[in-house]
């Protein structure tokens, strides 16, 4: 069981060796994890890589020059990226670093065989165990450098007769952060109304791209009152005319009922209303007998 301190020491030595080999390598390939970069870039067609033999013997630090590594960001554990690149190493110099279950092998490969696997599949690297390629494509592990070179030459000769699909991008290009499409993140330009002149209807149902997302501030109207002309009396359409219940205007408040009075004409003051009334006023009996005698005389004259 290897202690974590040993693993750390091995990794440090490996890093130093990588740096030294990078100086000799033609191009240092950065393994910058780009997650959201370049969704439009074509995915590289990966081909199973011959699995090198891994040994734990670290390389001598002084044997290699210090490489120039272009700012390799320290990969996070969860986003750890495995990479394989060509490093000219002596045949007897093999480095193997064990990283838990995974391992990084540093072998000498041809430039054509440099495979950059720092693509979108990097998400699977941290926890995934490196699957072994199918046995049919497995190549025999060269025991020496000469055998490896000869095997590589044979494979090149075998591939000359057929069309080799593009496997990896050229080393110069390397994995780069794909620039975001400028037009996708920028709002559409505001159309110049002066240049547009008359509106041009492209589609009767959908607005044009120039019309989307743009707001045009219309000039505010003056606060002067509008003079509306008299409404034109137009008969409503037949289908809008409906019979409404007859609305009878409420009768005005009823006036109090008053009789029609015909005044009686006044009597002439000279005409006595009745002789009886005058007689009643003139007769004032002093006793019952006087009244009785007057009453007995009535009608006797």
């Amino acid at each position, binding site marked *: 069981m290897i202690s974590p301190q040993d693993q750390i020491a091995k990794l440090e030595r490996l890093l130093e060796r990588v740096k030294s080999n990078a100086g000799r390598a033609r191009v240092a390939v950065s393994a910058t994890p780009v997650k959201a970069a370049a969704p439009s870039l074509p995915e590289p067609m990966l081909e199973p890589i011959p699995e090198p033999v891994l040994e734990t013997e670290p390389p001598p630090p002084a044997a290699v020059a210090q490489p120039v590594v272009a700012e390799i960001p320290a990969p996070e554990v969860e986003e750890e990226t495995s990479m394989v690149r060509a490093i000219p190493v002596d045949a007897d110099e093999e480095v193997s670093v064990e990283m838990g279950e995974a391992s990084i092998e540093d072998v000498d490969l041809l430039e054509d065989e440099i495979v950059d696997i720092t693509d979108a599949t990097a998400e699977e690297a941290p926890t995934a165990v490196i699957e072994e390629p199918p046995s049919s494509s497995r190549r025999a592990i060269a025991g020496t450098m000469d055998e490896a070179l000869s095997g590589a030459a044979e494979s090149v000769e075998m591939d000359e007769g057929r069309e080799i699909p593009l496997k990896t991008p050229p080393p110069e290009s390397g994995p780069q952060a794909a620039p975001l499409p400028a037009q996708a993140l920028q709002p559409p330009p505001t159309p110049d109304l002066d240049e547009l002149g008359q509106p041009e209807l492209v589609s009767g149902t959908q607005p044009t791209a120039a019309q989307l997302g743009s707001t045009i501030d219309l000039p505010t109207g003056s606060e002067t009152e509008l003079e509306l002309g008299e409404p034109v009396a137009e008969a409503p359409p037949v289908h809008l005319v409906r019979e409404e219940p007859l609305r009878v205007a409420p009768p005005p408040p009823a006036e109090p009922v008053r009789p029609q009075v015909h005044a009686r004409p006044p009597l002439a003051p000279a005409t006595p209303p009745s002789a009886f009334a005058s007689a009643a006023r003139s007769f004032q009996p002093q006793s*019952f007998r006087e009244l009785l005698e*007057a*009453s007995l005389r009535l*009608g006797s004259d």
Partner: protein
Amino acid sequence: MAVPRFDPSHSVKFDLGRGSVHLEGAGPRLLVPPDALVDLCRHAGQESLADFGRKLGTEVGRRIGEQWGDAGQNIGVEGFIEHLGGNLALLGFGSASLERWGRALVFVVEGSPLGAAGDPLLAAIFEGALQRLMGRDARAVVLGRDADHVRFLIAGEKGASKVRALLASGKAWGDALAALHEGGAA
């Protein structure tokens, strides 16, 4: 000498032991139902009814004269009707009052238990009372009647005949009285 006011105190006495009712200054009286009296009057004839009524009136006049004394001849209108009405009330004939229409003397009786059928009897009572008190032959003519009131004109023989004729012609009792005053009655 002033005429005393009508005083009905102790006017009627009931002697239950003897079974009699006494009217002060008049002797025993009978309490009879008015309907029976009306039926009797209807079947008695006009003259018998008039004699019966005049007897009752003469009795009333006598009692009033006893109350007045000698000063009764100069009694006033209010004094006369006070005593006449009081005595008729003691007999149960209703409440009597007096109206003067010009020179015409009109008695009014209200609440008579005899109704319209007893009007000739009431008229005979007034004639008998006036005969007894005033010594004058007068005629009481029914001018008109409503539900509870009846009016009697006191007139002479000629005047009574004229009024009856006017009322029979359809004239109202007011017009008949007016005509009687003008002397133009038929």
